Every structure is written in C-alpha cells, then in structure tokens.
C-alpha cells in the first residue's frame, strides 16, 4: 500500500485535524467527524448539510463554506458516517430556517440520513432530502432514482448553496437543489485502483493496458472493461453516454466538469476537455464556466469523470454566484 499515513485507523481523524488546522477560516470540527463552517450556522438561512465516506476530497467536507454548504458529517474511508453524526451536523447547520440534506444516493448514507432526519423531527427541526443520482451507467433511465451519486454533487452544492445564501426558504432551496440534481449527468472511467487504508489492498485490479468505462468512485463496476483507448475515444464514449441520457439541442447552455479521480493529472484532463468542448461545439451547445480539476476524487485512483449540467437562467445565475472554500473559489 503506497500511502502516506500513520495508523490506518487514524487516517480520517488525522486528515480532518490537518484540514481544520490548515484552513481555520473555513472549517471547524466541534464534534468528531462533524465539520462546520468556521462562523457556525447563519441565522435565518436554510442550512445545507451533506455527508458520506472519506476519501473523496474536496467532496464532502471540502465544500463547507460561504455560498456552499454549512456542515458535513464524514465517515471512514468510503463508509457512511453514523446517523448520530449526521444529526449533529444538521443541528450545527440549523439557523432556524430548517435543513436540506444534500448528498449522494448510496444505501448506507440514505438509511443513516433518514434516521438522522427522524431524530431531528423530535427536536422540531424541519429537514428535507435531495439525493444526487447522476451516474448514468449505474441504472437505466427508467430506474434513474437507483443511480449512484458522483461528481454532480459539486454542481448541486454550488447551486443550492447560492440559493440558500439569498435567504430563500427551505422549500425553495429544496426545489432548486432538486432541479440542479435533476439537471446533472455524470459518467466515470478508471485506469487503476486506490487503496482503502483499513483494507490495505487495492479496491479492484485492471490489466496493464485495460480501462473500465463507467466505473464508480468506490470502484463499483462499470459497463465494460476494454483496452485502453485514446483520450479522444474515451471522451467521445463518455460524451455519447451523457448525451444519450440527456439529449441537448443547438443553443442549449451547459457547464461541464472534467474531474480527476485522483492520480490522473491536470494535463490529461485538459486533453479530455479539449475534445469534450469540440463535441459540444459541434452540436451548437455552449459551455459556461467549465470546471477542470480534482473536484470529487477517490484518493489515488487513476481515471476521470465527466459531469454535464444543463442550465437554465436560474441555475446559471446560482452557479456563477460567489462562493468560497479551501478548494474552490467562484
């Protein structure tokens, strides 16, 4: 296991300690594995809470900050936080206007966040749920609600965060978050695995010249394993999958996120972006505020994801609104 760590069991806690120490202007950790905006809840603002496993920085914790999230509950690497931790995050995020739970569609996370919501009901804190289920290959269109949530979260955090920042009420923030989530489509591909510290061995194996199209951000299987293709072929395949699921028309506006799963360097993301841009230009679709970088990772996994979000005037406005965290500034 080629990782820089002390005890595997301390990986997450030491990481969070370092994160909060490096960026006290953004993050504080009032309870173990609960990360809250440095200033605490904003009175009268809808709180937005997320949560999920560690190992995806900047997702989840990283996106706590002005114009983005209010709190995050964070679990072990690739493992759900507990319902207790989620409930705690929700309490810290609550500024009296209720809390939106905005996170990815994974069984463990959903069960625990549902429990957390039930706990908060007893305390008369209203909360709603919006799930990201943007990974197009993880279920057919008819069963879209079963899809996994991947990098689309970045757009949903940004847009919902901007809406909440304008002091919209919980129903409105929930509506906008759901609209953003619905507008996202993602697909991933991987070239090599990562290692979960406590497991100590790679999450999957791939041959020296193999890639897996459609692979999930925890190494969940994709749709096919094939010989490593060229950047243009890979990008085409991904764009084709996205467009098949959500056709676009001449004049449409989208933002796209070309995201590294960790090890794939910026250089290669730009090579992919170049192609994706051409493909969209060819059908007369305009790209607004493209994102290229490491926005949702799987530690040191090699591979990339592409997310596309179709924008209307409202989503575009919220996407471009100011926001700040240690990993991203708009």
């Amino acid at each position: 296991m080629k990782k820089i760590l002390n005890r595997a069991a301390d990986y997450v806690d030491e990481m969070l300690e370092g994160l909060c120490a490096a960026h006290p202007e953004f993050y504080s950790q009032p309870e173990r594995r609960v990360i809250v905006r440095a200033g605490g809840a904003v009175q009268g603002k809808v709180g937005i809470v997320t949560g999920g496993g560690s190992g995806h920085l900047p997702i989840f914790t990283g996106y706590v900050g002005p114009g983005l999230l209010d709190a995050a509950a964070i679990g072990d690497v690739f493992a759900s936080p507990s319902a207790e931790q989620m409930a705690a995050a929700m309490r810290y995020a609550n500024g009296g206007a209720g809390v939106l739970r905005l996170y990815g569609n994974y069984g463990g996370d959903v069960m625990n966040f549902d429990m957390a919501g039930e706990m908060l009901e007893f305390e008369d804190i209203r909360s709603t749920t919006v799930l990201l289920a943007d990974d197009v290959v993880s279920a057919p269109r008819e069963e879209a609600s079963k899809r996994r949530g991947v990098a689309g979260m970045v757009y949903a955090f940004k847009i919902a965060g901007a809406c909440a920042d304008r002091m919209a009420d919980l129903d409105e923030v929930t509506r906008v978050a759901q609209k953003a989530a619905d507008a996202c489509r993602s697909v991933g591909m991987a070239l090599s695995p990562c290692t979960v510290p406590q497991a100590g061995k790679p999450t999957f194996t791939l041959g020296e010249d193999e890639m897996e199209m459609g692979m999930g951000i925890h190494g969940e299987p994709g749709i096919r394993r094939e010989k490593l293709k060229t950047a243009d072929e890979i990008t085409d395949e991904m764009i084709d999958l996205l467009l098949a699921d959500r056709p676009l028309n001449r004049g449409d506006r989208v933002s796209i996120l070309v995201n590294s799963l960790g090890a794939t360097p910026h250089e290669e993301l730009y090579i992919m972006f170049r192609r994706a841009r051409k493909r969209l230009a060819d059908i007369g679709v305009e790209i607004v505020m493209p994102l290229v970088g490491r926005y949702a990772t799987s530690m040191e996994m090699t591979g990339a994801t592409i997310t596309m979000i179709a924008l209307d005037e409202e989503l575009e406005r919220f996407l471009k609104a100011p926001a700040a965290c240690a990993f991203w500034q708009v």
Partner: protein
Amino acid sequence: MSIDSAVIAAAISRVAQATAECAEELNTADGALGDGDLGITVSRGFAEAAAATLPPNVGLALLECAKAFQRVSSSSYGTLVATGFMAAAKAAKGRETLEAAEIPGLLEAALEAMMARGKGSLGDKTVLDSLDTVIGAIKGRPAEEMLDAAKAAAAETVETFRGLPNRLGRARMFGDGSIGLPDPGQLAFQRIVEGLG
C-alpha cells in the same frame, strides 16, 4: 429455556468471535459484489456490542446492541442490523426475560423495520431473505431445535439465491454478473447464526 441479558451477552460474544474469524471471507465476498467492507462492518459491530455492558433488562440489552452497531458500523449492513436490534428492543421493552417461543416474533419485528429502513423487498437477494427464511424455519419449533433449523435455513438461503441476480444495494450494479455469487449479506447472516453456538 428462558433468555435473559446474560444469555444475550454470551451469544453476542460468541458471534463476535465467529465474525472476527470470517471477516476476511466476508470482505472478499463483498469485494466481488460491492465495496469489500462487509467483514469489517460485521465484526466491528459485534465486537463493539460484546464490549458493551448489557443492562439486565432484555429490552435495554437489545437497545445497547443497536447502539453499538450504530456507533461503529454505518454501512448498509451495520445500519440494518442496528435497525433490527432496535425493533426487537422495542418489542421486548420492559422485559427481564424472554421465552424462546417469542424469538420468531422479535425477528419479525426486526424484519419489518429493516424493510422499511432499506426500502427493500423479499426476493431482492439480501439479508432480508435470510431473516424471512429463518423465521419460517423456527416458528413453532421446540426451543432445542431452533438453532439447528436456523442454521440450515440460513445456509439454504445463500444457496437458493446464489443463482439469482442481486436487485438492491451496491451489488445491484453487477446485474446478471451477480448470478452465481453468494449475496455477501446473506453469507454474513449464515456466519452469524452459525456463531450463535
């Protein structure tokens, strides 16, 4: 045979031992159809429950087990087990001892809660099916036959569903690729029951 908190504690401790021993096996099974953490989830949960001091009240003892799982195992399985213990705890509320004949009823309460929590159905090839088969197998049986019947039912469930595709959780993504492989959660349930004694 009357079941009190000490009996529960002893059973939990045996299961903790058994699941520690098969953690690798369960990780591997979950690795083939999911994220490979099931052995950690199950062994850590039972170890935490075994380490807890269970109050003499049976209902409270089961509640303590639920809390132990909630503390350390928040993956799907851990949460479902916690949910099951919680429902059983509610059903046994205030009781100092239980009779063996009450066990199927507690398991039914657990199953119902787990179905609600995980939005799953029987036939999805999950731990729910194991629980359902075991309940059917032990209901109405004399106390001394229950354990063997449960073991047989739990093992049988794994084999019955092996030939079917997973329809829920991470394993769903493998579609027909999951045919031929045991559901990790059903396998874990089998090991848990075997660990009881």
